[in-house]
C-alpha cells in the first residue's frame, strides 16, 4: 500500500518526532533517576567504607608508634631507677646495659649516655666517638633538664645522622643528671614505611613545626607547608577524641588528596597517611565507568528503539488515515448511489402508473375489438398489431422500471442469500447497451447448479459493475469480447471476467489494487474502483486475483465462500451459455 507519509510529510514528520521524543523521555528519565540513585548509594557507601578502612589503619599504626615510644621511655626510666648515677657513670657497666637492651629488643637503641647537670657526657656506650661530648648548648638538653622524661624531635646532632633521643632526668644528692638513649632511626622509620596502599598511598610523621620525622617516599616530595595546615588550624575535635582526622584537599597541581592523621607522642607529632583520591577510589571510578558505559549503551538502544517505534507508529497511523479516507470516499459514493436509487424508485413509480393505464387502455380496446361489430372491420388486423405494439412497449417500459426499482432496493448492504448467476445476468444486461455501443460482445458461461452466495448483493453488484466497466474501458472502439464464467469447487463459488482489451503491464499489475492508482487517462478514473472491489471481496472472506499482460487482455477471478444454507435457497437451475 502506498504510504501517506509522502502526501502530508510535515504532519507525519512532526508526529514521528513527537512520538520519538515522548518515547525517549519516558524511557530515559526512569533509567537516569534509577541510575542516579544507585550511583549515589553505591558511591556513599563505598567512600564510607574506604574512610573507615583508612581511619582504622591509621589509628592502629599510630597506636603502634606510640607504644614503641612509650616502651623505649619505660626502658630508660627503669634503667635509671634500677641503677644510680654511680653505677651508670661507669662506661663498662653502661656498655653491658646497652648490650642487654640490644639482646632483648634488637638494635632499636643505638647508644646510651649519662650527662651531668652541666651538659657534659660522663659516660657513653655506643658506636660513636662521643665519650666527652658537651651537650650544654643542645636544644634537647635544655628541654630534657626541665622534664622527667623527654623524647626529642629528629635531628642531626653531633653525629650528623638523623636520630632522636629519649632522656630521663634524675635527682641524686641534690644534683641533676640525665640518662640518654638514642633511638635507631631506621628501626623507627620502618614502623611508618610499612604503611603503603595502592600506588600513591603512604604514611609519614611530622612534628609541630611541620618537619618530617620519617623518610619521605622517594617518588613523592611532601609539601611541608601544606601539611602544616593540620596544626595551624584549630585542632579538630577528632584529634581531641583520640580519633584520626579525615579530610580531602586539593594540592597545588589540582589533584584531590585524601589525608588521614592522628596525633602521636602526646600531641607533639602526627602520623599522616596521604593518598590520591583517584587512587583511593579507583575501584569506585572503575565501577562508575562501567555503569556509564552501560548507561550509554542502554541510552543508545532506547534512542534506536524510539526511532523504530516512532517510525513504525507514524506509518501505521498514516495507513489508518488513508484507510479512513478511502472509507469516507466510499461512504460518499454509497450516499450518491443511495440518492440515485431513491430517485430511480421515485421515477419508476411515477412512470409505472401511466404505463399501467396505457396498457390497460390498449387491453380495453382489444376487448372492444373482440366484439362482433368490429370483427369485419377493414383494418382490424392493423388495429390489433398496433395495440400489440403498445402492450409490448408497455411491458418493455415495465421491465426497465423494474430494473431501476431493483437497483434502488439493493442500495443497502444487508447480507442475504442470492443467486450469483442471476446477479451476473442483471448486471451484464445493464451494461450491455454500453458494451454494444463499443462493439463489445458479452459471453456468459454460467455453471448450472451453482450454490447460492450469502453476502451483500449491493456490494457484489458494485464489484461486477466496476469489473465490467473496466473491461469495457480496456477495449478500444474496434471492439472485442468479454467472457463471464462461473463455477464452484470445495464450498467456494468462483466467477471470472475476461476481456480482450489492452491488458496491464507487469509494473502496474503489482499496484492495480492500490487506492488512487489508475491506468486510465487523467480525469477518467478515480483509482478507487479496483481498490473498493478488493476491499469488498476481502470483507466477504473471498479473494480476487488478476492475470494480465500488456496487449493480451486481462482476467479477473473472484472467489467467494458458498453458503451452507442450501436447503433454504436451492441451487440454481437456469444457467448455460448466453450471449448479449
Amino acid at each position: 500500500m502506498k504510504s501517506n507519509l509522502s502526501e502530508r510529510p510535515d504532519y507525519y514528520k512532526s508526529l514521528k518526532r513527537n512520538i520519538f521524543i515522548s518515547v525517549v523521555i519516558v524511557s530515559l528519565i526512569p533509567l537516569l533517576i534509577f541510575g542516579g540513585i544507585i550511583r549515589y548509594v553505591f558511591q556513599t557507601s563505598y567512600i564510607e567504607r574506604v574512610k573507615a578502612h583508612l581511619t582504622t589503619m591509621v589509628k592502629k599504626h599510630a597506636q603502634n608508634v606510640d607504644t614503641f615510644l612509650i616502651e623505649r621511655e619505660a626502658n630508660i626510666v627503669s634503667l635509671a631507677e634500677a641503677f644510680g648515677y654511680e653505677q651508670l657513670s661507669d662506661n663498662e657497666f653502661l656498655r653491658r646495659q646497652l648490650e642487654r637492651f640490644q639482646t632483648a629488643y634488637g638494635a632499636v637503641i643505638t647508644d646510651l649516655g649519662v650527662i651531668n647537670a652541666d651538659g657534659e657526657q660522663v659516660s657513653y656506650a655506643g658506636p660513636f666517638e662521643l665519650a666527652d661530648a658537651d651537650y650544654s648548648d643542645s636544644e634537647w638538653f635544655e628541654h630534657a633538664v626541665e622534664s622527667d622524661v623527654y623524647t626529642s624531635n629528629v635531628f642531626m646532632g653531633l653525629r650528623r645522622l638523623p636520630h632522636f633521643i629519649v632522656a630521663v632526668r634524675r635527682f641524686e644528692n641534690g644534683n641533676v643528671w640525665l640518662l640518654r638513649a638514642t633511638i635507631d632511626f631506621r628501626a623507627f622509620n620502618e614502623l611508618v614505611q610499612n604503611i603503603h596502599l595502592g600506588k600513591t598511598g603512604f604514611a609519614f610523621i611530622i612534628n609541630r613545626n611541620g618537619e618530617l620525622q620519617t623518610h619521605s617516599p622517594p617518588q613523592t616530595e611532601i609539601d611541608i607547608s601544606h601539611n602544616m595546615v593540620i596544626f595551624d588550624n584549630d585542632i579538630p575535635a577528632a584529634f581531641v577524641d583520640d580519633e584520626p582526622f579525615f579530610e580531602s584537599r586539593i594540592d597545588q597541581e589540582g589533584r584531590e588528596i585524601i589525608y588521614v592523621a592522628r596525633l602521636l607522642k602526646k600531641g607533639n607529632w602526627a602520623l599522616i597517611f596521604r593518598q590520591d583520591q583517584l587512587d583511593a577510589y579507583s575501584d569506585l571510578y572503575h565501577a562508575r565507568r562501567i555503569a556509564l558505559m552501560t548507561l550509554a549503551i542502554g541510552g543508545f538502544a532506547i534512542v534506536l528503539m524510539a526511532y523504530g517505534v516512532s517510525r513504525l507508529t507514524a506509518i501505521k497511523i498514516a495507513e489508518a488515515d488513508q484507510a479512513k479516507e478511502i472509507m469516507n470516499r466510499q461512504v460518499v459514493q454509497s450516499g450518491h448511489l443511495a440518492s440515485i436509487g431513491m430517485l430511480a424508485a421515485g421515477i419508476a413509480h411515477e412512470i409505472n402508473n401511466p404505463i399501467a393505464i396505457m396498457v390497460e387502455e390498449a387491453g380495453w380496446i382489444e376487448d372492444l375489438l373482440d366484439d362482433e361489430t368490429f370483427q369485419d372491420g377493414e383494418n382490424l388486423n392493423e388495429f390489433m398489431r398496433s395495440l400489440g405494439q403498445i402492450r409490448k412497449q408497455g411491458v418493455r417500459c415495465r421491465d426497465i422500471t423494474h430494473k431501476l426499482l431493483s437497483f434502488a432496493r439493493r442500495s443497502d448492504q444487508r447480507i442475504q442469500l442470492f443467486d450469483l448467476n442471476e446477479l451476473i445476468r442483471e448486471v451484464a444486461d445493464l451494461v450491455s447497451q454500453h458494451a454494444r455501443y463499443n462493439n463489445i460482445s458479452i459471453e456468459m458461461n454460467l455453471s448450472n447448479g451453482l450454490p447460492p452466495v450469502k453476502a451483500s448483493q449491493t456490494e457484489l453488484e458494485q464489484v461486477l459493475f466496476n469489473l465490467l466497466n473496466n473491461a469495457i474501458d480496456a477495449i478500444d472502439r474496434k471492439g472485442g469480447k468479454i467472457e463471464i464464467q462461473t463455477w464452484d469447487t470445495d464450498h467456494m463459488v468462483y466467477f471470472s471476467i475476461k476481456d480482450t482489451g489492452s491488458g496491464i503491464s507487469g509494473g502496474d499489475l503489482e499496484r492495480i489494487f492500490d487506492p488512487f492508482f489508475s491506468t486510465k487517462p487523467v480525469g477518467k478514473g478515480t483509482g478507487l474502483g479496483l481498490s473498493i472491489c478488493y476491499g469488498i471481496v476481502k470483507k466477504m472472506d473471498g479473494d480476487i486475483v488478476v492475470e494480465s499482460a500488456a496487449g493480451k487482455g486481462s482476467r479477473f477471478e473472484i472467489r467467494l465462500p458458498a453458503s451452507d444454507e442450501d436447503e433454504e435457497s436451492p441451487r440454481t437451475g437456469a444457467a448455460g451459455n448466453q450471449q448479449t
Partner: protein
Amino acid sequence: MDYFSILVVDDEVDFLDTIVKRFQKRNIDTVGVTSGEKALEAMKERLFDVVLLDIKMPGGMDGIEALREMKKLQPLTEVILLTGHGSVETSIEGMKLGAFDYLLKPVKLEDILAKVGEAFEKKNAHEEKIRKAKIKELIRYPSRAFDIDQLKDED
C-alpha cells in the same frame, strides 16, 4: 368460469375505470373504489371474494392500513396487493398481514386474472374446510354455538 366478485381499490381513476370495465366485460362482478375508506364502506355493505388493492394511495388510508381493516371485516376475503412502487418490503409486510400475493404494475390482465383465480380457489377451499368443520361440530355437539374466529386461528 366460476362466478366471483372483485373489489378493485386504486386512486388512479383512469386505471380503475379501465380495469373495472375489462373485468365486467368478462362478466366478473366488479366494484371499483378510489380509496381505502371507500373500500371499507363497500365491504361493510356486501361480501367480496377477492380484493385488488393498490398499496400506495396518497392523501388518505394507505393500502397496508386498509388491508388490516379489511381482514377484520371479511377475514375470508383474499386480498391481492397491486403496486407501481415496487417496494418489496411493503409487499412482504402486506403478506404477513394476510394478503394473498402482490403484483407489480403494469401487469397484464391475464396475469391478474390468473392470480385472482388462485386467490378465489384458496378462499373456496378455506370456506369448504370451515363448512365441514362446522358440520362435524354440529353433529358432535348440536347445542354448541359455532365460533368462526376460533376456526380461522386453527387454520
